[in-house]
């Protein structure tokens, strides 16, 4: 007996993502999902954002396989940060994010930043109800990363190019990297920044403020 099914395999995840979108809409909150390799500087970007006063009020959902170190790092700066432990899984799924989101003081926030598990493949596959996936790429990783991980860079609504203070010491070809990004995704703005020098964060904060304004519009 042959049974035709046509059942979407992301269905259950999508249901939780949809619930998250309803909750975010109700609270007028934006949510971005930072995705990048381990060590690309995701947490360092959040540390700088926590120190700046020109951006939205935000809390962080920290995805990691193990340890609460990143959440502790951010809590020391006065940020509300919840650690989500996947216990081995390489990505966050919508249900876990939804539960963690509900426990945040949502009425006191403009934005929730999800720092996904360090990985450029798996997190790109999963919708967690975010307004935007943001790809994080450091200049120490090589200019061909957008071509090697096209799904992530294709899905991203913005790209953070981090650690730019190291450019003088590397053979990294910035123009080629930007060209590669353009060929995978011509629409996403690229924000070049250095967390160590706290440079280049202004345009990124403006982008986040715009995302927040969009989330609040009816």
């Amino acid at each position: 007996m042959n049974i035709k099914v046509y059942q979407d395999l992301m269905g259950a995840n999508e249901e939780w993502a949809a619930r998250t979108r309803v909750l975010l809409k109700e609270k007028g909150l934006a949510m971005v999902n930072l995705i990048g390799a381990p060590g690309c500087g995701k947490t360092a970007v959040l540390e700088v954002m926590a120190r700046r006063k020109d951006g939205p009020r935000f809390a962080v959902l920290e995805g990691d396989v193990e340890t609460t170190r990143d959440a502790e790092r951010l809590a020391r700066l006065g940020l509300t940060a919840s650690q989500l432990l996947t216990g081995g899984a390489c990505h966050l799924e919508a249900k876990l994010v939804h539960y963690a989101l509900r426990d945040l003081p949502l009425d006191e926030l403009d934005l929730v930043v999800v720092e996904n598990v360090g990985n450029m493949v798996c997190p790109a596959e999963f919708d967690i109800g975010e307004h935007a996936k943001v790809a994080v790429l450091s200049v120490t990783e090589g200019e061909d990363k957008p071509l090697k991980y096209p799904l992530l860079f294709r899905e991203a609504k913005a790209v953070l190019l981090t650690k730019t203070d190291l450019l003088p010491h590397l053979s990294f070809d910035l123009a080629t990297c930007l060209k590669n990004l353009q060929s995978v995704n011509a629409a996403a703005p690229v924000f070049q920044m250095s967390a160590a020098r706290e440079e280049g964060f202004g345009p990124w904060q403006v982008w986040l403020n715009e995302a927040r304004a969009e989330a609040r519009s009816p």
Partner: protein
Amino acid sequence: MHEFAITERLVETALRTAAESAGPDARVRRVRMVAGALHALVEDNMQMAYAVLTRGTAAEGSRLEIVRRPVIAACGGCGWSGEITPPFFVCPRCEHVGVEVTGGKELFLEEVETADEH
């Protein structure tokens, strides 16, 4: 290894479908899924996860078929539409970079075959 999470849903859905359509004692013989080329799925990992996840179920020993679908894009610049090869999302006719992807993100269970009763 997101393949494991996706295969988990595939096996759950296939087993539920078989039980609902062919009765609680139905054995699954073959499962076919469709995956667009934009999903970075390693077929060997899917097959391994499938073998592990079906063990001890009505689908143990069944065959998993994975049908890949190409990435299809439409160009807003010149109106071209057709198959493109990631990672280059560029129109092959006019080299416009902002092509819209219209196919290649599919991910679904298409068919379940159960063993005929004797």
